[in-house]
């Protein structure tokens, strides 16, 4: 074990923790918004189906929050355990957003506890809905602050570095770095997309299994239309992110696009492989598209990878992450669009099977999109941990046994994910929505 490089092992372990955490963190950010949307509709239209929907989502949500909390604690502590040198330096500049993230999370935790236990406690239904506002704000705010920390690593600013010591620190400037706006917006909206998609998939699954109740159709409509709106917004913000990269972090864009020579009228490559001379084979080439992506005009000059010394270039494999992310993002727009246009589709069956299967796939597709998106963003800033200031190799721990810790955490995450899936599926199998409506004596319980 110890023969392996602790830097590499630290990278793998951090990557693994984040890989797991991102799933649950994204659910944590988006689901409160969806619950609020459903409960709000329930109150406005006086339709108990939406209220039940909110209630059932909330029940499953607690389970995912639990995993989100513990994996979040994990990554938080691992920052110091695996990257002590980074924390020693960056702690001087970015402790503020970290600190505020914890505050936001604190508020979320308090109000989520209250929300879950007060469904029938207030006379005015609106009071209960109000409790969800701090939950949703708290989760989105903590995502915002922690993304600011990450964007600082991509675009460090708000300090001067002299002889390895940070001076003239401006914590606000470090927080509001140039990468922050696009990153925060992209993270938030893609999390909303993910959650709407996952919940839509659950509704589609119930209908596929033969549920005919109008409750499921309402759930499907609310979630799939939301997915469409959020996915379109994600794509638009994604485009801004591309422009940001072209201007401020050109080596990431260039490596992602296999763009070596600096030039205007740059071609975008989709797919393909690189040969030994860095020539693209089999790829789909779209003329001018890269220049348009970088600056909205075909004559925009796009900086190529050759401008950067070889030891400061990100790995070229990130091309595939980028392509996958964009492809999946496209599907997340197209599938909901087909659902919305279903009445004009040939066949004109209300809910064709292939469409329901497509909607069921929205969840897994957006999970995959978020994972590869993060991999593109993170691997794309290699070899830096703080771009331009500190390399990853200088930041990792010098302690032994990182390998054993990696084994330990692999086991932990396997157990967590496995039991989470098991508990969630049992939760919803034990209490069918239609049975629950009957038990509650809800009007329209029979289809």
């Amino acid at each position: 074990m110890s023969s392996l490089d602790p830097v590499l092992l630290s990278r793998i372990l951090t990557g693994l923790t984040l890989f797991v955490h991102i799933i649950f963190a994204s659910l944590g950010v988006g689901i409160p918004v969806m619950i609020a949307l459903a409960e709000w509709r329930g109150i406005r239209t006086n339709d108990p189906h939406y209220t039940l929907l909110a209630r059932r989502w909330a029940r499953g949500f607690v389970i995912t929050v639990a995993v989100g909390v513990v994996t979040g604690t994990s990554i938080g502590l691992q920052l110091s355990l695996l990257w002590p040198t980074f924390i020693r330096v960056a702690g001087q500049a970015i402790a503020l957003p970290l600190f505020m993230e914890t505050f936001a999370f604190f508020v979320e935790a308090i109000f989520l506890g209250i929300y879950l236990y007060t469904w029938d406690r207030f006379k005015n239904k609106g009071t209960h809905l109000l409790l969800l506002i701090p939950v949703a704000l708290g989760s989105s705010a903590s995502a915002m602050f922690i993304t600011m920390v990450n964007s600082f690593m991509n675009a460090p600013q708000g300090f001067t570095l002299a002889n390895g010591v940070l001076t003239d620190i401006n914590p606000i400037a470090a927080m509001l770095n140039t990468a922050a706006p696009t990153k925060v917006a992209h993270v938030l909206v893609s999390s909303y997309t993910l959650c709407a998609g996952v919940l839509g998939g659950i509704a589609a699954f119930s209908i596929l299994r033969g549920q005919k109740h109008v409750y499921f159709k309402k759930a499907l409509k609310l979630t799939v239309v939301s997915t469409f709106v959020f996915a379109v917004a994600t794509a638009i913000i994604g485009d801004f992110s591309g422009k940001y990269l072209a201007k401020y972090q050109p080596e990431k864009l260039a490596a992602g696009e296999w763009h070596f020579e600096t030039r205007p009228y740059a071609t975008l490559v989709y797919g393909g492989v690189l040969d030994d001379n860095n020539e693209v084979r089999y790829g789909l080439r779209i003329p001018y598209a890269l220049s348009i992506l970088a600056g909205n005009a075909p004559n925009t000059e796009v900086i190529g990878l050759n401008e950067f010394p070889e030891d400061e270039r990100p790995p070229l494999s990130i091309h595939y992450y980028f392509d996958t992310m964009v492809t999946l993002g496209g599907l997340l727009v197209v599938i909901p669009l087909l659902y919305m246009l279903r009445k004009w589709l040939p066949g004109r069956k209300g809910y064709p099977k292939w469409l329901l299967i497509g909607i069921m796939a929205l969840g897994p597709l957006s999970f995959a999109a978020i994972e590869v998106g993060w991999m593109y963003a993170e691997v794309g800033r290699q070899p830096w941990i703080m771009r331009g200031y500190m390399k990853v190799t200088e930041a990792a721990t010098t302690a032994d046994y990182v390998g054993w810790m990696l084994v330990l955490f692999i086991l932990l995450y396997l157990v967590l994910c496995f039991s989470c899936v098991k508990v969630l599926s049992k939760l919803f199998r034990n209490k069918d929505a239609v049975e629950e409506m009957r038990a509650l004596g809800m009007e329209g319980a029979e289809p």
Partner: protein
Amino acid sequence: MSYEIVGITVLWVFLFGYMIVASIDFGAGFFSFYSVVLGHENKVHNIIQRYLSPVWEVTNVFLVFFYIGLIGFFPDAAYYYGTALLVPGSLVIVLLALRGVYYAFNTYGSSKENNKIYMALYGATGILIPAALSTILAISEGGIITVREGKVVIGWVDFFTNPYTWSVILLALVSVLYISAMFLSFYANKSRDEGAFEILRRYALVWSGPTIAASLLAFFEINRQNPEHFQRMLDHAWMFVISFLCFLIAVYLVWRKKHLGWSFIMVMLQFAFAWFGYGRSHLPYVLYKQISIYENFTNDTMAIALITAFVLGLIVLVPSLVLIMRLFLFDAKYIRGSSAKKG
């Protein structure tokens, strides 16, 4: 007051908050499991469950807060402890993770209540986590973390053969059970659950003696371990005397079954005086002779920003905490179990 003192005080307050809420939680897990094993599960378990369910998530945040604050105010301390504590830190993360998720799985996800495996896990981690966390206090006395050839290393053999380490672990264990039993007696009494109250009151009284004995042992061992620190503790001896008086009042009130709310406030004061007395005499070092709050403090701008954020945060946090306590701790209807259960 200087920024350094404000900074360390903020951190110490959060650690104190964590110590109280986590002790209740850790001890409750243990008692819960223990009572299920003994067979009178419903008497104690329900009370514990009713208190813990809405607050389990909040407990963790105190710890994370302390840790993030440490990074912010004393980045060097995070560097030393972070490098040295890779293995024990990871183990604590794993224990906290298992404890957190299985609590949620059992409470919200499991169809049959009181899954024995979950409860055993919950009870066992409730004992292991405080033991593991308390060892950091022992490390902070110095001599365990050393720097060799520019590398931070930790001397595990010295650490485990040191009686001071074991006295701190012992103190942590018995305090957890004592604090928890004292709180739960108060809570059971408030919910007028006679059966649970009698059992919990017995636990509280049983664990009060060992708590004081373990405290004395830890005192004695600090003197051997770090005489300089001990000397400074004697300089603030009044704090420890008040702590002891609070202890006497708390136990007396539980013994006489009177004013249990005050009794728990006395428990908190008992630990507050001891905790802040210990912390105050530990200064200026965060890690003895290596990390001092003056030499390893963050830059001034960040300190001001953090303190400002902290004050603004409190404005949101304190009313929220009051709200959750009013709804679940001091709401007569809820704690008697007559209002609705989870959604």
